[in-house]
């Protein structure tokens, strides 16, 4: 375990990322409230060096959650989030949600957690005082209560809300008889949880944490500790707080945009047993028997991530022919070359290869996670590129798959069609790159792509994806303003605002919804509040098409001037020259923030090799 002196001296010598790594190690070995508080105290003065995303979290609760707070804040810190936490009054969650003057609304959270437990919400059910005849009425009442509270929150706040489901008792009051028929205690709790899910699904920004499943995962009998409950009214045991904190982090990462977009994997002893260059195609371990089946489980977990929209890439020290032969000829392989958007099979360092992959895929280095069985490779990547999320693997392949599945940086709260199809976009991308090699001029290349776009006002069907793009897009994003689904909905309903979404495709495939322009109108000035494109389509003049569309729309509604800011971030340098390149002139500048203006009496040209699809006509 790293000792405290080493951490303090790393901070004193301004090695901030190394200090953070050491603190993570110390905390993971003993995730106690004391160690969490040590971490928070040491990190406080170096926070501005850690590029943290701020997040205000309100915890509304019916039980003692206080020991959770430092643990949650420490884990959030390791994941790049500066969590500011407000804990609501003990069992006062209804009042706080219903009272417009409550501390909750004063605090103005980004995210609220409603942490309740069955014995507080439905005591008659927990204590076995209700009868079978009551069970449906109880479930309906609990559902209606939740719906009422969500309504109250929504009328005053756009905060995301995370609801805990209600947990089952370890021993139902009626014993094994509870499982007979469908009006038992556990079945009634299931009914309440179903109601809760239905209510959550009807409301934007409301998510369900399956608290009962979480307890089951770690063991119901060891989750709580009767001594703590009877002496301190604390239903969780010492080890359970960190499990609960890690589960909340799974929600906070996608809500704060701190997720990984790509997984870079090693091959030998990671997705098959043995070294193909030495053991040969028939000598590697992969198949129905241990350890081959353990590696098969790893591959299954990786395929599941691919289905979730995570981009896959390979970095392996191997002769390319040896490695590729396994993909082509080994019968047991679940992963195929088509799953991978980029491959680096060579003898260069992993760090160097990972940097190349990031630039080939056009994603930030901090959007990459790395899976390798070799602790030395992991350590090297951690040291040379601390931004990369390095996944720790236990000794022995039997637990590799579970380690990968428990990694929180791949969590998503919504899965769009774009996420599901992402793998095939990148395959088409490789084919486009080959075409570009053969094209004579850039314009020839654009023409040969046969790009078609559709630009339309946001609809209920596209709101989720539009919000997701504002939250995730970093590089081609002029202002990097992050919006929730609720905020997009509000803007779409406001006559002064316009939210346009761009969908694109070319002869190699559909890109899906990849561009967003949000504008507002004031007098004769139209201001571009947000303008962003997914990195998948940058450099194909789709950006010009979207800007031209914005200008035309503004001019046709009587605007004379188009304005837009460039607000610099650590990542959006690629969009810095966008406005001047399109004939805008700078009218204001301070601290790197630049305001540009365009006179709408001139037409802002549409790139004629991009076809605009009007509603109803086919994409291609």
């Amino acid at each position, binding site marked *: 375990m790293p000792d405290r002196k080493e951490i303090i001296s790393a901070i004193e010598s301004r090695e901030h990322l190394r200090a953070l790594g050491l603190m993570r190690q110390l905390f993971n070995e*003993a995730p106690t*409230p*004391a*160690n969490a508080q040590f971490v928070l105290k040491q990190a406080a003065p170096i926070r501005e060096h850690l590029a943290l995303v701020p997040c205000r979290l309100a915890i509304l609760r019916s039980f003692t959650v206080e*020991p959770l707070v430092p643990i949650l804040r420490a884990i959030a810190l390791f994941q790049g989030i500066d969590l500011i936490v407000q804990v609501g009054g003990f069992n006062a969650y209804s009042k706080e949600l219903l009272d417009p003057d409550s501390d909750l609304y004063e605090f103005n959270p980004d995210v609220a957690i409603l942490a309740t437990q069955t014995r507080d919400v439905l005591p008659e059910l927990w204590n076995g005082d209700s009868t079978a005849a009551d069970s449906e009425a109880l479930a309906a009442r609990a559902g209606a209560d939740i719906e009422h509270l969500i309504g109250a929150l929504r009328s005053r706040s756009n905060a995301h809300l995370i609801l805990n489901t209600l947990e089952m008792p370890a021993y139902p009051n009626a014993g094994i008889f509870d499982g007979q028929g469908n009006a038992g205690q556990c079945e009634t709790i299931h009914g309440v949880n179903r109601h809760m899910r239905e209510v959550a699904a009807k409301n934007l920004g409301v998510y369900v944490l399956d608290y009962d499943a979480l307890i089951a995962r770690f063991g119901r009998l060891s989750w709580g500790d009767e*001594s703590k409950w009877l002496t301190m009214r604390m239903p969780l*045991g010492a080890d359970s*707080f960190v499990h609960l904190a890690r589960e909340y982090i799974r929600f906070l990462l996608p809500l704060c945009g701190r997720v990984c977009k790509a997984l870079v994997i090693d091959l030998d002893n990671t997705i098959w047993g043995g070294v193909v260059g030495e053991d040969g195609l028939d000598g590697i371990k992969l198949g129905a028997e241990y350890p081959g089946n353990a590696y098969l489980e790893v591959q299954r977990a990786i395929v599941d991530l691919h289905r979730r929209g995570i981009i896959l890439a390979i970095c392996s020290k191997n002769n390319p022919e040896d490695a590729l032969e396994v993909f082509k000829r080994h019968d047991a392989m679940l992963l195929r070359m088509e799953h991978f958007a980029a491959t680096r099979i060579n003898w260069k360092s992993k760090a160097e290869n990972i940097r190349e992959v990031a630039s080939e895929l056009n994603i930030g280095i901090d959007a990459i996670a790395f899976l390798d069985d070799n602790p030395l490779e992991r350590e090297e990547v951690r040291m040379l590129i601390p931004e990369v999320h390095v996944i720790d693997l236990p000794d022995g392949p039997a637990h590799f798959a579970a380690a990968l599945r428990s990694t929180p940086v791949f969590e998503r709260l919504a899965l769009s069609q774009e996420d599901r199809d992402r793998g095939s976009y990148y395959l088409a991308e490789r084919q486009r790159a080959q075409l570009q090699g053969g094209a004579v001029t850039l314009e020839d290349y654009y023409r040969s792509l046969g790009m078609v776009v559709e630009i339309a006002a946001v609809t209920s069907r596209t709101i989720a994806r539009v919000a997701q793009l504002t939250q995730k897009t970093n590089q081609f994003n002029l202002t990097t303003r992050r919006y929730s689904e609720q905020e997009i909905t509000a803007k779409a309903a406001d006559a002064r605002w316009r939210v346009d979404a761009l969908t694109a495709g070319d002869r190699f495939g559909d890109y899906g919804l990849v561009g967003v322009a949000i504008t507002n109108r004031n007098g004769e000035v139209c201001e571009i509040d947000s303008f962003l494109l997914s990195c998948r389509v940058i450099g194909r003049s789709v950006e010009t098409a979207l800007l031209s569309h914005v200008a035309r729309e503004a001019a046709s509604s009587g605007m004379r001037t188009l304005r837009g800011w460039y607000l610099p971030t650590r990542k959006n340098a690629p969009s810095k020259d966008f406005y001047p390149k399109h004939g805008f002139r700078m009218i204001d500048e301070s601290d790197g923030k630049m305001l540009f203006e365009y006179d709408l009496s001139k037409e802002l040209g549409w790139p004629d090799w991009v076809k605009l699809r009007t509603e109803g006509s086919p994409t291609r």
Partner: protein
Amino acid sequence: MTNEAMIEKVRNIVAEVSEVEIERVTLQSSPANLEEWDSLAQVNIVLSLEQEFGHQFSPEQIERMVSVEKILEVLTAQAA
């Protein structure tokens, strides 16, 4: 774990959860003479000790843990 190491561990935990400098925590420190050692700190001390020592204290043990010295007594008796 040596006696010295155990004392250091307990003092560290008390200092960290009470958010005071380690120098202010002595064997005699208790909720009565260390203002920052409040009921929440007490909960966090118990939880941290349980995780560090891999033992779940009984309600009777928790009731006895009211100073650094008393905590050490409970831990020593437990280990014996």
